[in-house]
């Protein structure tokens, strides 16, 4: 089955998110209060290794499993959306202690009230689609 690899990658992601405690509301609070290195260590290591991996991918024009060149798309150069969208996201991240991935992981872990957070996230996404054309980007 072709899709199985994505399920497996997701399973690894879910386990890492729980075992690193990056899904924890408490850990997110600790991060936003600068009271532990833990979350900075996780994100910092991931980004540092990611930069190295992407550098070599580009440098040696590495190919994906189908032999196609790996192309990393550039994000559009608009600024307002990153600032305002980012701020709004951050407010919700601190309040719920969860970004989109962890919301689903914690439901699997047994925090069923996170379903409410997911419902909120889906309505927020829908609302954005509805008013997108009226917003500055």
């Amino acid at each position, binding site marked *: 089955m072709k899709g199985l690899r994505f399920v497996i*990658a*997701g399973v690894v992601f879910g386990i890492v998110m729980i075992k690193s405690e990056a899904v924890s*509301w408490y850990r997110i609070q600790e991060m936003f209060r600068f009271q532990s290195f833990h979350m900075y260590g996780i994100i910092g*290591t991931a980004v540092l290794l990611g930069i190295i991996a*992407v550098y070599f991918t580009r440098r040696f024009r590495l190919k994906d499993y189908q032999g196609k060149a790996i192309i990393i798309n550039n994000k559009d150069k608009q600024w307002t959306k990153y600032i305002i969208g980012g701020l709004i996201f951050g407010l919700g991240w*601190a309040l719920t202690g969860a970004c*989109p991935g962890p919301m689903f992981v914690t439901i699997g872990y047994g925090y069923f009230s996170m379903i409410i957070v997911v419902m909120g996230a889906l309505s927020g*996404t829908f609302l954005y689609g509805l008013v997108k054309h009226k917003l500055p980007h």
Partner: protein
Amino acid sequence: MLELLKQPWPWYTSGAAIAAIMVSLLYFGKSFGFSANLSTICSLAGAGKRVPFFDIDWKTQQWNLLFLLGAVLGGVIAATLLKNNHPLQLSAATVSDLKTLGIRFDGQLEPTQLFGIQALSIKNTALMLLGGMLVGFGSRYAGGCTSGHAISGLSSLQLPSLIAVIGFFAGGLIMTHLIFPLIF
């Protein structure tokens, strides 16, 4: 081995594992970004009929939905096969700050007082809905979340992602330091 995996993982192992997931997805010809799933679910629910933004071919995002399914399964495995019963080691300063806000540290991943099923008050439900909405709205507005911008975007040294991540952080600081004292 299983005993080792059951322990909380150190930050460097976790960070390396996240980078490995991002690289695997690149190798599979995809780009790591979780919040796109929220948009795809809206499309699947038929939002594309009314709102052009959701009028996409969800099949191009099928892989990401499978990743989401895996993430939920990963949570289930972590709660069963890899469960450990040691309390979370939160910094004493955070425990004390939260206590001032009236939030008791109970050693779990999430505060039972806010996320426990028995704690489902109108206030908690409203806060969860609102928080979720901010995350959903903000991630689509900014064109990505922690995975798409902080991990994928920063790894490819993109300035827009750096700005988005600074925004995520500023929003989190405002919520934690200015808004929490008003709502808790």
